[in-house]
């Protein structure tokens, strides 16, 4: 037996002994703040030694096993802790119950709020036969996910496009920059949810989609303006000199030097803005909406159905992942020169 194997065995015994021993004398719960980090450190030590035993060609499998295995193990522990009554499942339902809640939300139509999670796509043929495209539209319109995605995308585009334009102007024109920079910094730190009541007043229908989209757009706009300004100002002067020396003026300079030079930083800004847009729309839906992922999350909390509340949170995370992938796909198309 090699030294590594012996060490792994020793560390395993130590970590299991530590947890079971403390549990046996009834101190585990009191000392959990210390036991959990200690167990994590022991686990890291075990995995590092196990990693040394992995042959070169098994390396990628080992790395993937670490990346996926750890969260899976945490979920499993959560499940076991719930099943054995170690944690209060009223507020922290096991993953299996959350999944069941998610399934329940997906397949069922809520007659009271006249909505479903993803719009029951399996009914599309039937609704199409009965009401044509209008019938399909009524199906899509009942979807919480589509309501949220629609608001986020509309607000994102409506905020990002003018934000990037103003950012470029502020990047190249000192006067505009001096006039607006302080104001933007001030508005940037303002939580957009705090000005939602005012935004509602602007619209004829304060409870409609307009204010929700506008408040998302506003958050994205401010962020993208500041980000694009920094992106343009960060372009190496040598490229501007080269552009000028080779005859670029006005629009040519913009199209061939400034925009491509700023694009990588603009895209990191868009990624942050996407996260901000999600935060804003979910909080707006918490506050005032009859539909949307934020709405169901808060609604099921109010009616004390935590499984479905957690299911709502999972949908938010999934949306974040999908939208970020979309943005990365766009980035690869638009910035082929990036490593």
């Amino acid at each position: 037996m090699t030294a590594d194997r012996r060490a792994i065995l020793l560390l395993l015994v130590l970590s299991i002994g530590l947890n079971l021993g403390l549990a046996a004398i009834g101190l585990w719960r009191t000392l959990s703040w210390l036991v959990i980090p200690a167990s994590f450190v022991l686990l890291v030590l075990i995995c590092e030694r196990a990693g040394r035993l992995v042959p070169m060609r098994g390396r990628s499998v080992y790395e993937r096993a670490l990346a996926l295995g750890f969260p899976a193990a945490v979920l499993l522990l959560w499940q076991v802790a719930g099943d054995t009554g170690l944690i209060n499942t009223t507020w922290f339902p096991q993953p299996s119950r959350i999944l069941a809640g998610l399934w329940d939300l997906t397949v069922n139509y809520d007659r009271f709020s006249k909505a479903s999670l993803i719009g029951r796509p399996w009914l599309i043929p039937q609704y199409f036969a009965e009401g044509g495209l209008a019938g399909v539209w009524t199906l899509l319109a009942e979807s919480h996910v589509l309501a949220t995605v629609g608001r986020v995308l509309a607000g994102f585009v409506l905020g990002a496009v003018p934000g990037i334009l103003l950012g470029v102007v502020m990047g190249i024109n000192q006067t505009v920059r001096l006039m607006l920079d302080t104001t933007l910094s001030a508005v940037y730190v303002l939580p957009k949810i705090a000005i939602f009541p005012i935004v509602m007043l602007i619209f004829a229908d304060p409870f409609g989609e307009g204010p929700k989209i506008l408040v998302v757009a506003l958050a994205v706009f401010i962020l993208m303006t500041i980000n694009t300004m920094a992106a343009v100002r960060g372009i190496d002067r040598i490229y501007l000199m080269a552009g000028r020396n080779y005859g670029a003026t006005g629009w040519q300079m913009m199209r061939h030097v400034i925009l491509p030079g700023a694009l990588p930083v603009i895209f990191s800004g868009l990624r942050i803005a996407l996260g901000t847009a999600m935060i804003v729309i979910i909080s707006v839906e918490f506050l005032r909406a009859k539909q949307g992922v934020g709405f169901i999350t808060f609604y099921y909390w109010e009616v004390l159905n935590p499984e479905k509340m957690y299911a709502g949170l999972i949908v938010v995370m999934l949306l974040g992942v999908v939208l970020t992938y979309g943005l990365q796909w766009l980035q690869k198309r638009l910035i082929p020169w990036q490593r």
Partner: protein
Amino acid sequence: MHGMIGTPKIAARHVCKVYPGVDGPMVALDDFSLDVADGEFVSVIGPSGCGKSTFLRMVAGLDTISSGTIEIARGKAGRPLNSVVFQEYAIFPWKTVIENVAFGLLMRGVSRPERLAVARGWLDRVGLAKFAAYYPHQISGGMKQRVGIVRALANDPEVLLMDEPLGALDAQTRLVLQDELMRIWEETRKTVVYITHSLDEAVLLSDRVILMSAQPGRLLATFDIDLPRPRSAATMNTPRFSEYREMIWSRLSGEVARAMEQQQ
């Protein structure tokens, strides 16, 4: 005037550059005059901070002139006056190699097939044809500067301005590119102003070497390099080369020492 016939290609007269400084104005370049003949290769050499790069940028129109005049004589209509090869390459990371080389032509509205043909021709001459579709981050430093050099040549300017073009390269790549530069220049006979730190490079490449003083930059001495062309790396082994080298270094070393004292 070094046997110059007719009007010079570049005429710099009493050029000064003054920067506003914390302790009053700082003179970077003081009453600097230089004429460059058509088809002449002139190197400007001097200690760090003598204002030689500043002078080049003023010739290129990339920096303002405090007083004096710089004029470039126009030959063929529609030709750009100057193109710069930068020390930091300054080729655009967001354009492919061939797009970079064709950039000047694109800015002048040359049709796509024509500018690509010209760019491809130049890439061929420096052995980069098969890298045409690569992005700059995919090629080495030496290749990047080859792209920088042919970008300037494809633009077919009246004068070529080179700002320490080989300064960022390692010693071996530098030798290879020196050779290529010599070969291309023999073929094209462009008017060149070449800024460099390297005494060897200046003597090897130039018809004339201009020595500048430590700050404020003034013209200190002019050396006509009467070595037979075509030259090659082997030229550096000849006794004549060593003589020029010694002669210029005996003047330059004092200036370098003075510049080092100033910086302390």
